[in-house]
């Protein structure tokens, strides 16, 4: 703890020094998109801003989940040195907004028509007390199946439409000697898969009540028990060595044909692209069986801080560029996600991307666009992590029955609320 604080303070003072030396025609950005594809996607934005004469200054903190970046950001904000913007997820934006350190982009939002084009579910996180505080960059969706087409053809499988279909398909793969389900046994991956299982088992209404409204009755209902039973069923199809595996290694198993399918968010598509695979011919993307028509989302946002007046112009330029249709298209084609506004043409996207865009639009209009609890868009981090604990302990056997799992889930969520 003390060492972390010490490092944080040192970091903050270092950044403070850098901040004072900066020019006003500069955008200072804290993010953790440092890996190949993500960094390339971000270069598009850098290029757009350079055209308008704004220099880009990275404050990159490596690390996929952004924990390290959030720790650094906490120290920066505590020291009163805000970056122009920071990559942020879900409730973090609202936490910082409640702390009164976020800027106000409402004017820009009005001018650019964000109110109409950004899905209402996303605005829950980008608008705080009527003020726009963040610019959503993309929408990821987690209820996807990623299937190796060659393996699928070999075992003669077809698109599963219900959970039972899915189990039958997994059985076929097992019989053919392929690992049926590629899963990384880390708590967020297990919980991400469980999001889809709950939506499939209980339907959209149930998912919303249980995982967005945290309704006690739904959380301890028989439907939730059934969902845990279904999860247990799926876990019987993973290889014995799954525990602790990273998500991209699980994706690689599908790419190589060692495994049939992975249940993962659409960032997995980036891995397929990196391996030069095309949707439709090399791999297939289906919605998790029984969840077609609904979208469980998470989204990357650029949180905009309350910077001094001489830096506000740069911030507005950044926000405008972020939500411009051209950038939304170019960025999300590379990143594997779909645009955060529903009026972006889908011409440049591949088949999976086109389906993702259409699904998002339909879900937004039909009211079936729900935040992912595992990805921190269903409830605040304390609750989301308590949920991940319970799911992971259930998968790895510390919690032995679905009865016990439901009791623990209610207890853990109540405790964290």
């Amino acid at each position, binding site marked *: *703890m*003390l060492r*972390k604080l010490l490092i944080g303070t040192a970091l903050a003072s270092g950044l403070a020094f850098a901040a004072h030396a900066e020019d006003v025609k500069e955008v200072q950005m804290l993010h953790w998109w440092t890996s190949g594809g993500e960094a390339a996607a971000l270069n598009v934005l850098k290029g757009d801003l350079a055209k308008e004469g704004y220099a880009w200054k990275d404050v990159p903190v490596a690390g996929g989940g952004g924990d390290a970046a959030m720790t650094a950001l906490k120290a920066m904000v505590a020291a009163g040195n805000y970056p122009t913007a920071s990559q942020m997820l879900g409730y973090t934006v609202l936490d910082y907004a409640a*702390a009164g350190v976020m800027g106000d982009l409402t004017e820009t939002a009005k001018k650019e028509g964000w109110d109409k084009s950004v899905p209402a579910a996303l605005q829950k996180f980008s608008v705080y007390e009527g003020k726009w505080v963040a610019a959503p960059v993309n929408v990821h969706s987690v209820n996807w199946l990623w299937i190796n087409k060659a393996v699928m053809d070999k075992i003669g499988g077809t698109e599963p439409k219900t959970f039972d279909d899915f189990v039958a398909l997994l059985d076929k793969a097992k019989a053919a000697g392929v690992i049926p389900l590629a899963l990384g046994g880390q708590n967020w991956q297990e919980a991400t898969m469980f999001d889809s299982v709950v939506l499939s088992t209980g339907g959209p209404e149930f998912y919303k009540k249980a995982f967005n409204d945290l309704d006690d009755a739904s959380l301890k209902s028989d439907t939730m028990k059934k969902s845990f039973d279904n999860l247990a069923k799926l876990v019987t199809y993973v290889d014995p060595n799954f*525990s602790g595996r990273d998500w991209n290694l699980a994706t690689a198993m599908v790419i190589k044909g060692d495994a049939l399918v992975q249940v993962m968010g659409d960032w997995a598509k980036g891995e397929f692209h990196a391996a030069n695979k095309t949707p439709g011919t090399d791999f297939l993307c289906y919605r998790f069986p029984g969840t077609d028509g609904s979208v469980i989302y998470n989204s990357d946002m650029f949180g905009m801080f309350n910077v001094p007046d001489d830096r506000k112009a740069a911030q507005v330029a950044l926000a405008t560029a972020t939500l411009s249709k051209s950038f939304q298209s170019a960025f999300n084609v590379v990143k594997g996600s779909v645009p955060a506004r529903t009026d972006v043409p889908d011409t440049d996207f591949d088949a999976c991307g086109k389906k993702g865009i259409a699904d998002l639009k339909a879900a937004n209009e039909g009211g079936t666009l729900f935040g992912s609890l595992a990805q921190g868009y269903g409830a*605040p*981090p304390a609750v989301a992590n308590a949920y991940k604990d319970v799911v992971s302990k259930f*998968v790895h056997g*510390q919690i032995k029955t679905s009865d016990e799992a439901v009791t623990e889930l209610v207890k853990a969520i109540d405790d964290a609320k």
Partner: protein
Amino acid sequence: MSTVATSQIKLTPEHARPRASVRSRLQDALPKIVLAPSFAITIVFVYGFILWTIYLSFTNSKTFPSYVLTGSRAYQRLWGWTFDTDPPSSWYTSITNMGIFGFLYIAICLALGLFLAILLDQKIRGEGVLRPIYLYPMALSFIVTGVAWKWFLDPGLGLEQTLHQWGWTSFHFDWIKNKDFVIYTVVIAGVWQASGFIMAMFLAGLRGIDGEIMKAAQIDGATTFQLYRRIVIPLLRPIFLSAFIVLAHLAIKSYDLVVALTSGGPGGSAWLPSNFMYEYTFKRNEMAVGSASAVIMLMTIVAIIVPYLYSELREKPR
């Protein structure tokens, strides 16, 4: 020593001149001036932050520190979790793991370190080559140790896979994937890293033992076992103290080893209290609970180390 020297100088008449007195006063103050910055930094960044953490543990701090005292709810929650054994709460897992890891890590490192040191002390050839081989793991960071052992212990990549390829297909070693055994893999990696260093400490101790005592014992007819049991090991007592303190603090701060080796283990089964503290403070935005767990860690260390130090250091003047 220096104060004695300067006070003697002051007595001599030629140093009564003002210029020299300024100089000598400066000399007097110099150690204090030099030490002041590090002293101030230690006061603020160690003891100041300890107090700050204690204060935060009695607030309702979530994402950001809050300074409104709200009582001991964080401690009550931790206390409740301490008895949540089935299914085990994360806190229960963390403290039982700390017990298992702390005990085994310190005990095995001491035993293995002493054993290796005694073997190396037999005036064998090639000692100069062997010693650094054992010592070098200490030069690696916990992260490197963790990643290397993660690969080595992974049933699909490392030891098990290799032995299967060599034909021993019944070999089975999946502790790192097993919720009940994963903490022991942390012990293995930790012991591998630190036992060489402990060996070096014991070796230095052994070299410091007067050869005359050994000879006297041998003349009196002591067997080698008796020699070590009755004479050498008791003489190494101060080394045991130093080694214990080094190992105890390494054990407490093994956060990075757990993360690199197991990423928390299946269902969080490899957590140590330091992992718990980081998770709750920075990932779950429950700073008060995180601070409370840090305070409990500190109290535990104090409760173990202080009596031990007291008993060891008090006997010295005897």
